[in-house]
């Protein structure tokens, strides 16, 4: 960065200061961030949806085991889980991304030369997590539409409701989601974003008094 730009950025304070009096020590107007809670649904529903479509696809291999266990199982049942979980994931992920953007606008990462295990600083981690989040939302919606067409049109009369390509894409997306989720986790655990104790410590407060 050239020095002129540096002094310009120092001279203009972050617009978050305009509402600083409405925010708590965690830089949010409420105690607990919302995005990390909605993320449970996005990850859980997508992962288990894909897993059950795998279970449906490999049903001919599994059915002996289920018979051995006397567990009544239907192939359509497995594929129903695959469809409805991914559908629910699509719906909730719009809110996950929306809450994420709101809370990122209010994010104040800890100062200092902090880097994640992959060498990124706070702003790069945030930018990648933001772009990745929008990309994943798009991908999840496209996967759901694809899944719906397979269920209701293309493979309506097939025992295996999904193509191998769909399953491969689903597994790949889960790997990407794992990396993406790690970026988000590091925003909290390394950069202290929206964590009351970390923000208080960075402000020089004594936790024995301010967080008894």
């Amino acid at each position, binding site marked *: 960065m050239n020095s002129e730009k540096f002094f310009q950025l120092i001279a203009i304070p972050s617009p978050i200061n305009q509402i600083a009096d409405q925010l708590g020590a*965690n830089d949010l107007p409420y*105690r*607990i*961030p919302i995005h*990390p*809670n909605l*993320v*449970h*649904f996005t*990850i*859980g*529903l997508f*992962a*288990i949806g894909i897993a*059950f479509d795998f279970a449906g696809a490999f049903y001919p291999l599994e059915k002996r085991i289920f018979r051995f266990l006397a567990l*009544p199982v*239907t192939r*359509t*049942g*497995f594929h*129903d*889980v695959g469809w*409805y*979980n991914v559908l*629910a994931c699509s719906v909730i992920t719009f809110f996950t991304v929306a809450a994420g953007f709101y809370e990122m606008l209010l994010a104040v990462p*800890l100062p200092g030369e*902090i880097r994640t*295990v992959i060498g990124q600083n706070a702003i790069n981690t945030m930018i990648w997590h933001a772009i990745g989040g929008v990309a994943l939302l798009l991908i999840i919606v496209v996967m759901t539409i694809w899944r719906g067409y397979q269920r209701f049109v293309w493979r309506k009369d097939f025992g295996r409701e999904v193509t191998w390509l769909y399953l491969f894409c689903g597994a790949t997306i889960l790997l990407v989601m794992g990396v993406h*989720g*790690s970026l988000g*986790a*590091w925003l*909290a*655990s*390394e950069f*202290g974003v*929206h*964590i*009351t*104790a*970390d923000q208080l*410590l*960075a402000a020089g407060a*004594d*936790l*024995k008094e301010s*967080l*008894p």
Partner: protein
Amino acid sequence: MLELLPPLNDKNLPWLDVIHPIVVHFVIAMALITVVFDLIGIITNKRNLFEVSFWNLVVATIAIFVAIIFGQIEAGLANPYGASRDILNYHSTIGWSLAGVLGLFTGWRYVVRQKDPTRLPAGFLVLDGVLATLVFCQVYLGDMLVWIYGLHTVPVVDAIRSGAVS
């Protein structure tokens, strides 16, 4: 014996990041979506949704035991301070109870499903309400440990090791 254990990193963990909050994705999402699909299934009379919620309940029940294993290890390494000690105690108590509750619910659901998978006894909606309430309380307590007290985050671990926090 202690030197056989892996060294702890700057989050006071023997592995890169906390694992418990990852495993609980599958307990929280699956338990609550069971409740949602049960309700939608009854309102819209879409009976195959009961099968969907049954399988999600099974996943939640398996996942909670994995969550407890990692939760106990990471709680043991968390060095809670101040009021977070009490919160961690409540979180552990509800966590173990939830494993029992989920196990019972899944068992009952299995028996009911064995007779007729397209029928859900109305009584199960009461259990759904109990389950959702327990999960919400448990999530709130866990959220407080992370987002207010910052257990296993680098600055808090740093402060604990330097003796600034206890």
